[in-house]
């Protein structure tokens, strides 16, 4: 009995300690935002004596609002394209016996494996030659491409388990595959669409490398690149930097807390 209790204490202790390790940096970020410069230097472990908002004003003066808007536009369009295009392709791969399907699936998996860093120079050259550097469109297109392979794999697994009876009935009624997909499959795929969309939104919202090389003008920077500007502008004004981070991070955390069920589901599906 006492051995059981000891094991229990260790188990709770371990997850509690790990949770503190996870929460502390977030707490530091929020508290530093409200501290005065003096407090930041003299009492790194202390809590702020007042809740000043001057740091937020400094952070917003860098253009955080417009970076956020850019991130929103890029995420919205890229995620819409990724989910639509991947869903369509995955449906074909899971239903129709084209001879080339196996090859297409292998291509998709290869596309999943290739990281943006491995194609950086030609991709930059291509976007530059198309005159799309410093345009949101120029980032949305390659980001869409890099989001497709993973999403196809996710949808493919879902469609394989999808009951086929409804589709067979529709086929007898003379529906084409195109009609079946949009009228029957899509309305019944809510959960997997939600998982895919949320997962891709987080990825695109946070994407750094491609945005870094493509977007050099302040007007088009997305949030992750904008945060670097924040640091450049307020080099050792940690209050301003942390205020910017708080503005950038808290909305994502709220979205995550609301939708966390779907997150966990889409990630858990990876192991299957």
């Amino acid at each position: 009995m006492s051995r059981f209790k000891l094991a229990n204490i260790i188990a709770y202790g371990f997850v509690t300690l790990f949770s503190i390790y996870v929460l502390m940096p977030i707490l530091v970020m929020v508290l530093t935002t409200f501290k005065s410069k003096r407090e930041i230097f003299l009492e790194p472990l202390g809590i702020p004596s007042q809740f000043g908002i001057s740091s937020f004003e400094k952070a917003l003066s860098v253009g955080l609002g417009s970076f956020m808007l850019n991130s929103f536009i890029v995420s919205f369009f890229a995620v819409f394209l990724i989910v639509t295009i991947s869903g369509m392709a995955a449906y074909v791969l899971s239903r129709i016996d084209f001879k080339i399907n196996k090859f297409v699936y292998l291509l998709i998996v290869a596309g999943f494996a290739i990281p943006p860093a491995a194609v950086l120079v030609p991709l930059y050259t291509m976007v530059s030659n198309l005159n799309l550097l410093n345009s949101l469109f120029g980032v949305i297109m390659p980001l869409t491409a890099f989001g497709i392979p993973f999403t196809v794999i996710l949808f493919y697994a879902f469609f394989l388990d999808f009951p086929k009876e409804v589709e067979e009935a529709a086929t007898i009624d003379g529906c084409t595959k195109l009609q079946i997909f949009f009228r029957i499959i899509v309305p019944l795929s809510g959960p997997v669409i939600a998982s895919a969309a949320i997962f891709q939104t987080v990825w695109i919202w946070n994407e750094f490398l491609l945005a870094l090389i493509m977007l050099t003008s302040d007007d088009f920077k997305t949030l992750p690149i904008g945060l670097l500007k924040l640091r450049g502008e307020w080099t050792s004004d940690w209050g301003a930097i942390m205020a910017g981070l708080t503005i950038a991070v808290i909305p994502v955390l709220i979205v995550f807390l609301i939708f966390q069920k779907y997150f966990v589901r889409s990630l858990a599906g990876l192991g299957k």
Partner: protein
Amino acid sequence: MNKNNTQTNSFSLSNDKVSATILLVPALIFCTIFIFIPAIGTIVGSFYSYSLTSMNNWKWVGFGNYVKATQDEYFWVALKNNFIIVFASIVLQVGVGTILAAILDRGITHGKIIFRTIIFTPMVISSVAVSLIWLIIYDPNVGILNAIFKSVGLSTPSKGWLGDPDISIWMIMITAAWQNTGFMMVLILAGLQGVSKEVYDAAEIDGATGVKAFWYITLPMIRNVLIVAILITTIGAFKVFEFIFVFTQGGPSNATQVLGTYIYLQAFNLLHMGYANALSVILLIIALFLGWLQLKSSRKA
């Protein structure tokens, strides 16, 4: 089936082909234009010497860029750092993630969802934001790490936590673990929940409980999930970029470079496009090899 039916089928089959093609083509176009053609471009470009400013002035150098890589001390440093990060990430993220998952699965009864949500949270924060948050923690003047060390009477590194490459690579690991361990935990937890209760009951009759049951019964049963977790971590470790870009910029004197940051440095700071391509091809080969391993393991699973 009568003849009439067969005809309808063949008609709808050709119709199917048209609509199937319409559904499949956009994905192929996107991946071809923005992934496969650039991948081929990387391979072709790796045999030339050119710079960003003289785009039309390509000089054929054969395998020259690859020979240069084998003689480039910093390339080997970058590759070595990637491997250190792979190894440490597997231990820290998959190892600790497994322990956390096991505790959440059967070790505790209360607060499972709260703990899971907290530990997973950093996964949704951008790596740049994560790096900047940890930058203040590691800061020698205002950081809480120094403050904690001093408050218990320990000495702190003289060049700061990020100034000495032997220390900073570990600070990068701690930050990466902070962001990714929750992801591994959730992945492995899903595998653990697939292990049926009867297995544990049977094990208990044989006298295996707690840690013993976990080691001898649970771990072998979630082998496939663990392989996927290790592969995802390995692939992630080769993609690592932001932490190093923000913390050290690869310095001091290139000691903390990884392939990603070194490719970026060669291409966009030094404008050695051909050489950057050759380094990219090496990364490409590693990535495709890992992708192939993942495909093989997921088929087995």
